[in-house]
């Protein structure tokens, strides 16, 4: 549907889709830098590899559908999907995991619905959830240990070899469960003081992860100031997650404490880069608040009571699923008109 906005004033900004997408990619760089600094070269290689597959998959579909190649490739939306997956996947995930995730994201979750602007589910998260369910072993044992905790961290070529399956590194020596995972499983038979003795929790919240999350927070705030998205979704999501973890996890000896929820997983990446996807989220401000709060609540519920240590992907997908209904019931009233009634109408 081509709905042109032609009300006055007819001034238009220079912000094309491509510009926005480029800004999004650039603001993830601090986060990528933090990931590389603390966890080694894995994420950097993943980001490059995922971007290549994303662009190739996009080009392939465009060729099949006989669409103009350059026009669609230049809007960078495929690149954003690739970069987000590269950041979200475990640093040492084998190359075929990334391949399946990105190809599924671009081809099935995005282009079967007609390409950018039509996809009901966030492509990156569909890819992530698919590989998480299909390859649970590769997805849980490929998290790199913080480089500073290793005696001799992996060099660039060793990491490359591990991901692409050449060379002979013993990968187990370089991997470690994520802090959220460790806390969740240790706290059942231990107290908070003992659990946080584990060097993976570092000095503040979680070694390395806190800086990665702060970097994504900074990038996200920059996007917010630049008005790439509004505050509603991320703020309501973070508040909902905080309230949930304060209400049900206030006792650090029983459950994962709030700070760990906010700064130890993919929370900030999810709140500012994934939940705010304009295509798959709700539209009106009120709708965005419900949508964001839903993601926060579901994230907490799945993290705390489900079998997955991190839950951003599932929470986002479930709320993507709910977004059209939220939109239906949160349509803003047009000025001068009564609110539209909904319900069983007289069948004509």
């Amino acid at each position: 549907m081509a709905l042109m906005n032609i009300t006055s004033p007819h001034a238009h900004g220079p912000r094309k889709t491509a510009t926005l997408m480029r800004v999004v990619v650039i603001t993830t760089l601090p986060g990528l830098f933090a990931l590389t600094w603390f966890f080694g070269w894995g994420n950097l290689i993943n980001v490059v590899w995922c971007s290549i597959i994303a662009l190739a998959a996009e080009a392939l579909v465009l060729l099949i559908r006989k669409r103009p190649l350059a026009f669609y490739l230049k809007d960078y939306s495929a690149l954003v999907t690739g970069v987000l997956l590269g950041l979200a996947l475990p640093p040492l995930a084998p190359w075929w995991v990334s391949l399946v995730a990105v190809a599924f994201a671009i081809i099935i979750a995005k282009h079967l619905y007609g390409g950018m602007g039509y996809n009901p589910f966030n492509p990156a998260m569909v890819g992530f959830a698919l590989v998480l369910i299909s390859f649970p072993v590769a997805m849980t044992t490929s998290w790199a240990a913080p480089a500073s905790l290793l005696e001799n961290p992996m060099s660039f070529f060793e990491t490359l070899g591990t991901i692409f399956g050449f060379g002979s590194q013993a990968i187990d020596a370089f991997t470690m469960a994520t802090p959220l995972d460790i806390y969740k499983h240790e706290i059942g038979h231990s107290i908070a003081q003992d659990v946080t003795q584990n060097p993976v929790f570092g000095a503040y919240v979680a070694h390395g992860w806190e800086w990665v999350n702060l970097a994504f927070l900074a990038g996200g705030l920059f996007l917010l100031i630049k008005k790439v998205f509004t505050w509603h979704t991320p703020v309501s999501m973070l508040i909902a997650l905080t309230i949930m973890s304060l209400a049900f996890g206030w006792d650090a000896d029983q459950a994962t404490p709030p700070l760990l929820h906010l700064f130890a997983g993919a929370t900030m990446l999810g709140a500012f880069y994934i939940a705010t996807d304009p295509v798959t989220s709700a539209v009106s401000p009120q709708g965005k608040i419900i949508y964001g709060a839903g993601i926060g609540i579901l994230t907490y519920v799945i993290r705390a009571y489900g079998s997955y240590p991190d839950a951003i992907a599932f929470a986002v997908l479930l709320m993507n699923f709910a977004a059209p209904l939220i939109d239906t019931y949160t349509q803003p009233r047009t000025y001068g008109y009564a609110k539209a009634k909904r319900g069983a109408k007289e069948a004509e």
Partner: protein
Amino acid sequence: MTEYMLILVSTILVNNFVLVQFLGLCPFMGVSNKLETAIGMSLATTFVLTLSSVCSYLAFEYLLSPLGLEYLQTITFILVIAVVVQFTEIVVRKTSPLLYRVLGIFLPLITTNCAVLGVALLNIKKQNGFVESITYGFGAAVGFSLVLVLFSAMRERIAVADVPKPFEGSAIGMITAGLMSLAFLGFTGLVNI
């Protein structure tokens, strides 16, 4: 009380009848083109499912079991469900002619909704008691309704998308249902019932 809450969480989210157990797919694909019809259908199904799980439990417990005719359960339940559906149809026709017209052919089709029979049979298999059976049936119906309504809102949106020719209509609906089922796998492990 906790037990019933767990049954509800289990049937609505973790073992959702449509997206995890793949029962009741025909109305799920058939009635989800419009939000209004989906809401009507889900209300009717909720009513029928709850009532039929009660009736089938009573029929099994006080009729089949004493007579030693457990092997007749499937055919008996189909009969019970058909009666309940017919009853619902008469009531809806008299109380809400509008809803009756909106639902049209789909009301009698609840008889063939395999989720309804599935719930009745699973109640017996899990040896649920009277209140547990009601809760189980009601939870299954709420889970079905939730997914159906969300899905229909989403299909209204997909209907205007630029879907490639071979995937238009039900095909993309099936793919969407698959992706939704992927999302629902996130609830795995929430409750073990």
